[in-house]
Every structure is written in C-alpha cells, then in structure tokens.
C-alpha cells in the first residue's frame, strides 16, 4: 500500500500543484482529493482487467 500511496502523491502533485506557492490553495486541495480517488479507481480498473486476462 505504501508503493501505491507514493505513486499517487507523485502523480497528483505533478497534476494538481503546477506552481507551488506558500500553501496549498482550496482548488489545489479539491484537485488532490479527486485525484486520489481517481488514481485508486484507475488502479482497481487495471487490476480487474489484468487479473481477468491472465486467469
């Protein structure tokens, strides 16, 4: 789970915080929160698709 969290942090920081300032703005936090949910969802879609293919 640590590896998934590290990757999510990296991908979402790159996407949601293009110009880092002195704090995380509200819109950056909204973006990060959605990005976290979507990256987990992408991970689930990939897992299902891959597992069903190699089963």
């Amino acid at each position, binding site marked *: 789970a640590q590896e998934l969290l590290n*990757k999510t942090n990296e991908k979402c920081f790159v996407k*949601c915080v293009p110009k880092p300032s002195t704090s995380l703005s509200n819109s950056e936090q909204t973006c990060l929160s959605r990005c976290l949910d*979507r990256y987990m969802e*992408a991970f689930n879609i990939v*897992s299902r*698709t*891959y597992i069903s293919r190699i089963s």
Partner: protein
Amino acid sequence: QAQARVHSSIHQFTSMCWDKCITGTPSTSFSRNEVNCISNCVERFLDTSLFMVKKIEEQRQQLNS
C-alpha cells in the same frame, strides 16, 4: 514471487495508462471514455507484448532456415 511480479506490473500499468488516458484535471468521476481507455490500455499493452515476442520468434526462425 509470481505474486510480487503481478503486483509490480499492476503498478507499472496504472502509472503508464494514467499518463496516456487522464490528460485533464481529475473530476468527481471518470467519464465512460476514460474508463474504456484505461481498460483498453492494459489489454493492448498485453497484446503488444505478445506481438513483440511473436515477431522475435519469426525473425529467429527465418535466420535458422
């Protein structure tokens, strides 16, 4: 160990297909297009791996004949 390899592939595919399919700002849910793109991305990458192995086999047989 086989399980570790599957796990590591899932991480690699998630990262690769995320970059290919999710180009805008994340929304409250995926569009139908985004879901299909992620799922097709995994399937076509696996097709690509099989295709490449087949091509290499063909070339090896031509060299030996």
